[in-house]
Each structure stands twice: as structure tokens, then as C-alpha cells.
């Protein structure tokens, strides 16, 4: 490596905000799953909505805004499970990025 490249490499700063944003985009996309003929995002909005409703079968709109009839408890369970899996993975990678700073 020549001196110019060596100096450049030493001066390289880790872009923390961009790495954090990449993780956000990545894990938000991983919250998606398909069920009951619709596409769902296992985020807090969906989990709260399903927790608030009480009927066994409910009609709610999916990520594309299309109404779908779902089994509330089943979808809630799947959403909570996916949400937690991805949040745990996100936290691990987030800690890894923090160590890079």
C-alpha cells in the first residue's frame, strides 16, 4: 500500500448513522410475512391492533391496504414471534455496529 492510500485508510471514519439506518431498513423489511392471502408487517401497529380486537375472526387491511379475513389469535401469535425474532437479531447487529465506532 502506498503512503497516500495508507493515510487515507487511517483517516477513514466509520459512518455510524448510515450503518444504523441500514440496520433499520434491513430489519423492517424482515418483519414482512405472507398469510391469509395478504402481506403483513409484524410491527407494533399490527400487534397492538390484533391485541385490541376480541373476536376470533376479524377483517383487517394488510400492508397493501387490502382487506383480509384472519384468525386473530393465530396472526397475533405469528406476528409476535416474528417481531421478537427480528428485534433480537437487530439488537445483536446493532451492538456489533456500536463496537465498530
Amino acid at each position, binding site marked *: 500500500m502506498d503512503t497516500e492510500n495508507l493515510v*487515507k*485508510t487511517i*483517516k*477513514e*471514519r*466509520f*459512518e455510524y*448513522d*448510515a*450503518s444504523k*439506518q*441500514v440496520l433499520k*431498513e*434491513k430489519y*423492517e*423489511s*424482515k418483519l*414482512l*410475512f*405472507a398469510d391469509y*392471502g*395478504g*402481506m403483513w*408487517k409484524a410491527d407494533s401497529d399490527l400487534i397492538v391492533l390484533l391485541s385490541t380486537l376480541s373476536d376470533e375472526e376479524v377483517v383487517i387491511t394488510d*400492508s*397493501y391496504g*387490502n382487506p383480509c379475513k384472519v384468525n386473530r389469535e393465530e396472526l397475533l401469535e405469528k406476528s409476535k414471534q416474528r417481531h421478537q425474532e427480528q428485534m433480537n437479531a437487530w439488537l445483536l*447487529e446493532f451492538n*456489533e*455496529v456500536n463496537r*465498530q465506532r
Partner: protein
Amino acid sequence: MSRGVLIFAFNNDKIDYLKQANWVADRVYSYMNTPVTIVTDEKSIAGRKFEHNLVLSDAISGGLRNFDHTSNDKVDQWYNANRFQAYELSPYDETIIIDSDYVVSSDQLLHLFENPHDVLCHRDVYDVTGQDRFKWYRHFGRYEMPHYWATVLFFRKGDFAKNFFDVMTMIRKNYRHYGLIHKFSTGMYRNDYVVSIALSIVYGHNLDSIPTIPWNLPSLYDDVNVEKLEHNKFMLKFEKDINGNKKPYKSLLKGSDFHCINKFALEKLVNG
């Protein structure tokens, strides 16, 4: 129902697109366990052997392009205009077309096979370096037509997708006409523009009703360098303008697909 990935790859004298496509195809197979078909021509194959399914077609040029923003001697034909043939050439019922510079590092694209829509592509892109340099690509033409990205294009064979590709064919044949209507430069054929106009037409010009891939396309600008750390972990090196001075930066990308617009950085990755 058969499912697979389709990649178009026609070489010119500057870039071995087929080699890139083959490298990407290996990654698709690793992360998605999905068959891949590469559409190419005899000239690109040049007697080499490839493990993935190859379909032959005549390369159609979309015009001359400068392949390196840092010099003017990397101008060559850009054979990018075959995409309208995808419906006929794809051996699958459900197909994801990806560009040969779309680096697969996850199984994220598998979600597309589960979605209820017959044609989908990305509307939103994010700049992985955090500089938001793709904001200029939100629209195209003087009348700010919404810009959809042809980098990843999902279709499920049926009447709707057939109509979509028929409309793409019609737009390709009348590209200058559509350039005049939307007031964009027609010097170079752009799949993004053709896909955007075709989506607008098949959805009855009701732009709000066009469904898109429900996550943003991770993209690297053409001056970002990429180093492979692990099979699915990359170090990105780029410069940022801080108070008028260019400062070197780096960031990590792990387990995420990305669109690598810097063809020469991609070539280095492919060549190991």
C-alpha cells in the same frame, strides 16, 4: 407452480456482464435456493461453460453509455433493452428479474413469491451510505413522472403480466414518442422509464394504485467501493463532502442485498 430468477447479461468490450450474472446467480442459489436462468448471447458466452441455465437471445443495444464516471474512455454500447422479452423467455410461472449488478446476500426476495400482486418493482431506494443521493431519481421527465426501478421486477404469468409486457414492448417500439410526451432524453434507453410508463398504463394512469415491493431498494452510488469481508458481509468505502472537503468514510453491510451501480467495484468482487 415453478419459481425462479432471471438475469439479462450481454457483454460489451468493457464489461463482462455474463461473468457478473453468473456470480450473482451463484449467490441467488446459495441464499434463496432458487433456480436461475441467464439470458445472454453466443458472443458473451465465448465458448465458456456455465452451471446455470442459459437462454440465448440477440442483444439489443439501448445506446452508448460511459461506464466509468472518473474517465471518458469507458464508453461502449449498453445492451440493456431486452427486458421486454422476459415474459416469453422466462421458463418459470413466477419470475424475479434482477439486474446483474444486484448482489444477493439474503433470502429477502423470496417474499415476492408470496405477494398477491402479479407485477411488482421498487418505487423507493435508499442510499446505503446515508447521503440520500438517489433523491433525484424520485421522478423523471419534465412533468415529474414517478420513477420505478426495474432493478428487481417480479411477475406472475397470467393476463395481467402479459398485458404489462405487451405494453413494455409497445413503449420500447415508440420510445422517442414517449420521450416527447414525458419530456425526457431518449439518447439512452432506460428500463426504469419503460417500466414506470408501462405500470402507469396498466393501472389506468391511477398512479396511487400501483403496488410496489414493500421495502426500499438498498443502493450504492457509482463512486462507492466495496470490499468483501465475508460471504454476506461487505465493507463500503466512500467519500463525504464535509464543509467543502472530501473526507473518507466506511460502513458495514451485512446480510442485506444491494444494488451495486459501480460496475468496476462489482468486477473486483466478482474476480475475488
